[in-house]
């Protein structure tokens, strides 16, 4: 085992020892991170071997490429002995087998590849992880990292004619730093021309044998695209031969904004990542910043956070439920679910003062405590929704037409789901018992009694049923929160809590200045790196923050479930018909804000 006096070489982690044994310790540099996730630096030349080893050779393998992103390191001050690099590509692998073994430190591994120069090059790992495709395109789009061997390295989030790589530090973040935007006729024509779909660019045939294919542009404005999402279909009659999802129409540069907002003022931006998730979006962000700051939050805060997050899981799932029925042609259910959501928002509004985007969690606590009489409102809601859920099951989920429309449509198994990075109900429907709240409980989820609904094969039907059941489980969790709400403060007593505790301010001028700076500039987080994952409404949502000892984040990476789920579409839907695609899209349960960030 590692000697305390020696530099941390990561030998305390099983997986690091296995990797060292296979490749030799000299190939790697271990980096200690605040979240305790084993982090290894690898040479670009060896990265594919290491990924292959972790995916298929090691015991209890890392089957899922959870995230892949890049960091522009050129102006970072605190590198603490990390290998010098201008750009770093970060791979985050996830092993569900290891997570379920209840090893809290195991299950994830982070690999880093340092790259040098203005046009950094890194080998593409699509041959190992299929879902690296979009992640590598995104890293190229935003950071200009060239992935050699990538079959179609083109822009994904930004328009095709965009110039520059906005994720880079030398790219301005504010509109005022640019020339005024002008859209003249010529530019509009060129931009539209660039969006024209050319099948040849995607390796598609225009005809085959005696069949001429029709290319149907579904979206970005289509009633069932659930937002500004475009998918180009190659059709033989109504059968989908192949398709190309096109995203980026909802891109706002949230990750870049995190680099100019203070740690505190970025919270409202997180609300709008998965805009149906409300405060549940705040949760991974504030927990991650709390890790960086070393804040431990009181039990009351944890429980309130769980309760409000589950409220948003319910409102999000209810919207899913309604639109899911709507997309197979049943027009009525959605109205009933909107009534229920209204009731839920009444409670949320009473507690947080806001409805969809309360931005209510704070670094180290909450904006304020629960209002008087909150239990009554919560109880009313639980009593209201339970019987309604039974009714919906009878009227919607058991409807014979809905069942024939959804059973066996766009089905995939557990292996395929992991290959594409599918998480959340889509993964559990394939029989993988992986709910992050159970696998690695956070914010006190270990104290709650609830079940994780599972199914055998993930198809449109089971994905719908699972979410309906999850609403019931969320109600159970909320009920337990209500009955067992701990007493105590709603804010951690820590100098980096934001807004800072006022009691600390009123002693002398020194404490007053500290408080004033904490409020006006925001807290300064100590340098470090950390990732926090939660089970969000649609799957696993994670924040990876790099703090460089300033009032803002140096790099914030937001990994969202919807991005991965959309990438999977062609693999699941080819060979089906257009109505199946619509049902499948409904069953994914995504919002474009969550995809494009």
């Amino acid at each position, binding site marked *: 085992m590692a000697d305390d006096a020696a530099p941390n070489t990561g030998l305390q982690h099983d997986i690091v020892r296995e990797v060292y044994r296979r490749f030799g310790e000299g190939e790697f540099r271990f980096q200690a991170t605040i979240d305790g996730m084993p982090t290894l630096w690898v040479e670009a030349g060896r990265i594919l071997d290491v990924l292959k080893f972790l995916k298929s050779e090691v015991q209890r393998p890392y089957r899922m490429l959870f995230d892949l992103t890049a960091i522009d390191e050129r102006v970072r001050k605190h590198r603490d002995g990390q290998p010098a690099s201008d750009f770093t590509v970060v791979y985050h692998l996830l092993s569900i087998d290891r997570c379920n073994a209840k090893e809290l430190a195991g299950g994830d591994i982070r690999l880093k590849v340092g790259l040098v120069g203005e046009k950094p090059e890194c080998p593409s790992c699509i041959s190992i992880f299929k879902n690296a495709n979009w992640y590598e395109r995104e890293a190229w789009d935003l950071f200009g990292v060239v992935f050699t061997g990538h079959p179609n390295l083109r822009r994904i989030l930004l328009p095709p004619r965009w110039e520059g790589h906005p994720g880079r530090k030398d790219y301005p973040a504010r509109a005022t730093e640019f020339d005024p935007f002008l859209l003249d006729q010529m530019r509009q024509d060129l931009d539209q021309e660039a969006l024209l779909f050319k099948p040849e660019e995607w390796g598609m045939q225009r005809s085959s044998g005696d069949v001429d294919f*029709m290319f*149907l*542009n579904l979206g970005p404005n*289509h*009633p*069932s695209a659930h937002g500004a999402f475009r998918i180009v279909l190659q059709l033989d*009659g*109504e059968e989908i031969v192949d398709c190309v999802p096109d995203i980026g129409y909802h891109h706002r540069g949230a990750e870049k904004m995190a680099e100019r907002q203070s740690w505190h003022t970025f919270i409202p931006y997180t609300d709008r990542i998965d805009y149906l998730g409300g405060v549940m979006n705040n949760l991974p962000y504030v927990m991650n910043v709390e890790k960086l700051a070393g804040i431990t939050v009181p039990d009351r805060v944890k429980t309130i956070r769980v309760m409000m997050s589950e409220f948003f899981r319910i409102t999000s799932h209810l919207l899913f439920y309604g639109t899911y*029925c*709507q*997309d*197979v*042609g*049943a*027009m*009525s259910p959605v*109205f*009933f679910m909107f*009534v229920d959501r209204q009731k839920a928002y009444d409670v949320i509004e009473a507690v947080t003062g806001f409805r969809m985007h309360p931005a209510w969690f704070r670094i180290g606590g909450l904006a304020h405590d629960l209002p008087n009489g909150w239990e009554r409102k919560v109880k009313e809601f639980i009593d209201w929704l339970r019987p309604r859920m039974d009714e919906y099951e009878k009227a919607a989920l058991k*409807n014979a*037409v*809905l069942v*024939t*429309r959804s059973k066996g449509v766009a089905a995939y198994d557990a292996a395929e789901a992991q290959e594409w990075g599918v998480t959340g109900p889509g993964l559990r429907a394939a029989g993988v018992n992986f709910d992050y709240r159970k696998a690695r409980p956070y914010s006190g989820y270990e104290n709650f009694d609830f079940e994780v609904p599972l199914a055998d094969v993930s198809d449109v039907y089971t994905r719908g049923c699972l979410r309906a059941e999850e609403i019931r489980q969320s109600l159970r969790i909320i009920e337990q929160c209500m009955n067992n709400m701990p007493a105590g403060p709603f804010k951690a007593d820590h100098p980096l809590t934001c807004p800072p505790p006022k009691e600390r301010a009123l002693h002398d001028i020194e404490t007053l200045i500290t408080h004033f700076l904490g409020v006006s500039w925001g807290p300064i987080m100590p340098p470090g790196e950390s990732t926090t994952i939660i089970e969000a409404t649609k799957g696993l949502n994670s924040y990876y923050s790099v703090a460089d000892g300033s009032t803002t984040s140096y790099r914030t990476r937001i990994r969202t479930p919807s991005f991965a789920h959309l990438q999977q579409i062609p693999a699941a839907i080819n060979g089906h*018909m*257009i*109505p*199946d695609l*619509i049902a499948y899209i409904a069953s994914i349960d995504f919002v474009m804000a969550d995809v494009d960030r």
Partner: protein
Amino acid sequence: MTLPSWITQETIDTAIKSVQAVVILVGMVVVSAWMIWLERRLLALWQDRYGPNRVGPFGLGQVIADMLKIFFKEDWTPPFADKAMFWIAPAIAMAMMILGFMIIPLGDTLWIADLNIGLLFFLAIAGLAVYAVILGGWASNSKYSLLGGVRSTAQTISYEVFMGISLMGVVMQAGSFNLREIVHAQQEQVWFVVTQLLGFIVWVPAALAVTHRTPFDLPEAEQELVQGYHTEYSSMKFGMFMVSEYVGIVMVSALTTTLFFGGWDVPFVDNEGWFLSFLSFSAKTFIFMCSYILVRAALPRPRYDQIMAAGWKVCLPISLINMLGTAAVILWQTPGASS
């Protein structure tokens, strides 16, 4: 003072009949337009909301407001469309549905055309009506419209076949294609929904399919094809498609009443008189109109190939069995035919 020689009893009758026809047709179109209001209010009732309730009493003025709005909208024809066909399609839709209503007797004395091939005429009209959808879908020169048109063609072919067959039992029992004769036959025997239950069961989906209503609204499936064949239509051309759909509902509901529920017949009353017959006929038709709306509120939409399969594999055999069964029973009951 003498009347001009051309005013004879015959011309007076003709004049009265003409006025009657115009009143009935205009009345029906107005009723169809108000059905939009009815549908929105009923859907709202079943969906826990209010629906249009602001314009006039109970929101009844909403239809007028909508019609005015739709008249003043830009009547845009896409530059890529085939103009002549694009314009004629909504006219066909409207005309065919109104023509279909012509043959339906509202009472024993209240009718427009007493055709002795009444039911055949309806089947022909239903077949022609699909041209509105096909031409609209084709002429729009839009991929979504085209898909809608294609679906409609396939759906019509599948459903016309057994729709006709499902009604043959009624024709055999009444011994006539004339709708008034069919009602008379029901007054003498019993409402045909009793003796022709199988035929009725098959007729219901076929009738839904004729009007392109949920769950047979595949040609305009909003979630899949945006608005299907009328995606590119605006203003009054769209309005005509829309009203024709409701005219279709009124027409098919009236037809269901006539064929299976005794038309204007009131049970246990011998001489209804024109007012009571009309009331009875309207009440029955109204119930069927409402049931169309209930179906829309309650059911999801099957997939296009599932609808085809149900048509060919379920409805067609049932309607054939029904026809053969009816024929056998009639033969068996006819004296002299069995020997």
